[in-house]
C-alpha cells in the first residue's frame, strides 16, 4: 500500500438547546424536573455569587479572583452529571461546579481572601480538589486519582476542567496520553472560553477545534455548545457512563465565552472588542435555559425572582460568616509543612512567634 489513507477520523458537535432555548427533540435528555431545577438553581447561584464577589473585590473585602460569568452551563452541566463518589479536579473558573460539589461560599471567600482555611472542606464534602492555579497541572492529578479508582475497583470517575489556554501546556498532553494508555475513568472538560487572558484562541492554537486533539490519543472527543447546559449535561453523562463502564477517558470541548475580565486584576478593554463580548451576552447560557424551562411551564418571572432572592440571602449570610471569622492562627503554616514535627521547623516557629510578639514580624 504505497500511498493511501489508512485511518480516518471525525469530530462531532453537540447542541441540545439552540440559541432560542429550543431543544432538539431527539437529543433532549428529558431530565426529571428536579434535575432541571437543580441546574437552574446552580447556574443562578453561580451567577449571583460571581456578581457579589466582584463587588466584594472592588470594595477590597476579598482579593483577586477570576469571574465565571458566562461559563455557568459548561461547568454546572457536568458537575450535576457527576455521582457523589466522583472526583472534581478543577482549575480556577468553576465556581458553580464547586458549589454543586458542596463547597460553602464562606470557603470560597476565605480562599479569595488569602486563607488556606478556605480549602478545608466541611464534613461530607469530599473528592473536591482545591482550586489549581498552575494551568494544566491538575489534569495529571485527575489521571492519577482515576488510576487509584480503577486500581481499587471503585466505580468512581474523575472530572477535570481546564481552559483553552491550558491545552498548550505539556502537562495537558501528558495527561491525555497517560489517561489513554491507562484507560482510566477520567473526563477532560476544556472550557474553551476563547481567551487566555489577552491571547485569543487563534493565537493559542492552530487547530479548528480542541475536540480534535482527542484524535491524537484515539480517545473519544466531542465539541459541545458550552452555553447549552443540557448539551453539557448529556455529553458529560455519556462520558461518565463510558468511563464507569471501563471505556476509558473522554475529551469534551465546551465552546463558551469569558464574559468578564480574566481576573479582577485584568482590563480586557486593552485587547478585545465590546461587540464581540456583546455577541456572547446574546448567547447567555442562563437566558437560554430559562427559556427552555419557561416553555415547559417550569419557570416564570416570579420563580426567578424568588430564586434570586433566596440565593442572595444565602450569599449575604456567607459574607457575614466569612467576615466574622477571626481564628487565623498566624503560625498555622508551621503546622502544615510536614505531617511530623521536626526541630528545624519548630525552632523557626518559635522565632516567628517571638518576633510577632515583639511586633516585629512582618512587613507593612
Amino acid at each position, binding site marked *: 500500500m504505497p500511498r493511501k489513507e489508512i485511518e480516518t477520523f471525525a469530530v462531532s458537535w453537540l447542541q441540545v438547546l439552540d440559541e432560542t432555548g429550543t431543544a432538539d427533540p431527539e437529543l433532549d435528555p428529558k431530565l426529571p424536573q428536579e434535575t432541571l431545577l437543580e441546574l437552574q438553581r446552580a447556574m443562578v447561584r453561580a451567577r449571583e455569587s460571581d456578581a457579589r464577589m466582584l463587588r466584594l473585590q472592588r470594595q477590597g473585602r476579598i*482579593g*483577586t479572583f477570576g469571574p465565571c460569568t458566562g461559563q455557568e452551563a459548561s461547568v454546572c452541566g457536568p458537575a450535576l452529571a457527576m455521582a457523589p463518589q466522583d472526583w472534581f479536579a478543577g482549575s480556577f473558573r468553576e465556581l458553580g461546579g464547586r458549589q454543586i460539589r458542596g463547597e460553602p461560599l464562606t470557603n470560597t471567600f476565605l*480562599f479569595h*481572601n*488569602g*486563607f*488556606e482555611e478556605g480549602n478545608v472542606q466541611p464534613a461530607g464534602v469530599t473528592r473536591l480538589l482545591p482550586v489549581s*492555579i*498552575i*494551568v494544566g497541572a491538575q489534569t495529571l492529578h485527575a489521571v492519577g486519582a482515576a488510576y487509584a479508582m480503577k486500581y481499587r475497583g471503585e466505580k468512581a470517575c474523575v472530572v477535570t476542567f481546564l481552559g483553552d*489556554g*491550558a491545552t*498548550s*501546556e*505539556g502537562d495537558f498532553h501528558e495527561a491525555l496520553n497517560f489517561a489513554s494508555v491507562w484507560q482510566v475513568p477520567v473526563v477532560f472538560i476544556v472550557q474553551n472560553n476563547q481567551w*487566555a*487572558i*489577552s*491571547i485569543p484562541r487563534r*493565537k*493559542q*492554537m492552530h487547530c479548528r477545534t480542541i475536540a480534535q486533539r482527542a484524535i491524537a490519543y484515539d480517545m473519544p472527543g466531542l465539541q459541545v455548545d458550552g452555553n447549552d447546559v443540557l448539551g453539557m449535561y448529556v455529553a458529560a453523562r455519556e462520558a461518565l457512563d463510558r468511563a464507569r463502564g471501563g471505556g476509558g477517558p473522554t475529551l469534551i470541548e465546551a465552546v463558551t465565552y469569558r464574559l468578564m475580565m480574566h481576573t479582577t*486584576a*485584568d482590563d480586557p478593554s*486593552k*485587547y478585545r472588542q465590546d461587540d464581540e463580548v456583546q455577541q456572547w451576552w446574546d448567547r447567555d447560557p442562563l437566558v437560554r435555559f430559562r427559556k427552555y424551562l419557561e416553555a415547559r411551564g417550569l419557570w416564570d418571572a416570579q420563580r426567578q425572582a424568588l430564586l434570586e432572592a433566596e440565593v442572595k440571602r444565602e450569599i449575604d449570610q456567607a459574607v457575614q460568616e466569612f467576615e466574622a471569622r477571626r481564628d*487565623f492562627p*498566624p503560625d*498555622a*503554616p*508551621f503546622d*502544615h*509543612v510536614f505531617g511530623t514535627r521536626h526541630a*528545624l*521547623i519548630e525552632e*523557626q*516557629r518559635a522565632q*516567628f512567634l517571638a*518576633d*510577632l510578639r*515583639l*511586633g*516585629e*514580624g*512582618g*512587613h*507593612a
Partner: protein
Amino acid sequence: MPKLTMVQAINLGLDQEMQRDDRVIVLGEDVGRDGGVFRVTEGLLAKYGETRVIDTPLAESAILGASIGMALAGLRPVAEMQFCGFSYLMLPQLEGHASRFRARSQGQLTCPLVVRVPYGGGVRALEHHSEARETLYAHLPGVKVVVPSAPRNARALIVAAVRDPDPVVFLEPKRSYRAFREEVPEEEEVMPIGCAIVVRPGTDLTAISWGAMMRPTLQAVEELQKQRKASIELIDLLSLAPLDVETIGASVAKTGRCVVVQESPRSFGPAAELIAVINDRALLQLEAPVKRVTGYDVVTPYFGREHQYIASPARIRRALEETLDF
C-alpha cells in the same frame, strides 16, 4: 531626568535595546497586546510589530525552548515568565540546554538570552504568585542571575542582560515594580553583571540584601542610625550568580559583623551562600555570627498571612542591633 517606576525603567531599557538591535525579540504570555500582566512590555508591540513582540501560547517550557533555538540561530530573545511560580516549567530547558550550549560546544554555540521573571511576595496575590526562589536559578552553573532593586539599576541591568553573551535570569522584584520612582536617564546606562555595589559605606557592620528586601533593609539601617551611633555598610548584590565574592568578603573583613536579609525560605537560600563566602574570606575578622533574616522553611502562606512572613524593617533592625551588640 524623568522619574520612572521600575516597570517603566525596564520598559525603557527593552525599548532602547530593541531600537538598537533588531535581533532583540520579546516573547511570552500576554506580552504583546496586553503589554504584559505588569505592563513591562507595554507599547513594544505597537512599535516593533508582531514578529518582534510575540504573544505566545501558554507554555513556559516552549517559551524558553524556542528562545534557545532563536538564540542559537543568532537572535537575542527576551522571554517573560508571567510569574516566578510558573517559571519552574522552564527550568529543565534552562538547566539542560540554555546553560550548557556554550560548554557543550566549547564556545562554538551560545545562548544569549534573557528570561525575565517577576518574583517575590507582598502584593496580596493568589497562590504561586508570591514566591521567592532565587536559589533554584543561582545554583545552576552557566546561568547568570540578576536582581535589580530600583528603577535606575533595573534599567542599566536589563540592558546588560540583553547584551550579555549568556543566559540571564532577570528576577524582577514585583513588590518594587511601582512602589517608588527614581530618576532614570534617557541616555544609555549599563551596569556590569556579577558586581555588587556598596550602597552606603560603613565600618561597624555590613548589611547585605538584594531586590525587594533592599528597601526595608535600608529603612532599618536608617532608623537604627537615627537611634544610635553605628556605621553600617549596605551592600546591594544586584547579581546572585556569579556572586561578587570580593566585594562581600572585603566588606565583612572590614566591618567584622554582618546581617543578610532574604525573602525566600531560609534553608539552602542565598544567605547561606553569603555566610559561606564570609566564612571563606573573613571568618577571622568576624566578631559576631552572621545573622540571617529570612523567610521560613514553610510552604509560602496565602496572602492573608503573607505579611507576617516577609521580614519587616523592625525585624531587620533588631537583627542589626543584636549583631552590633553581640
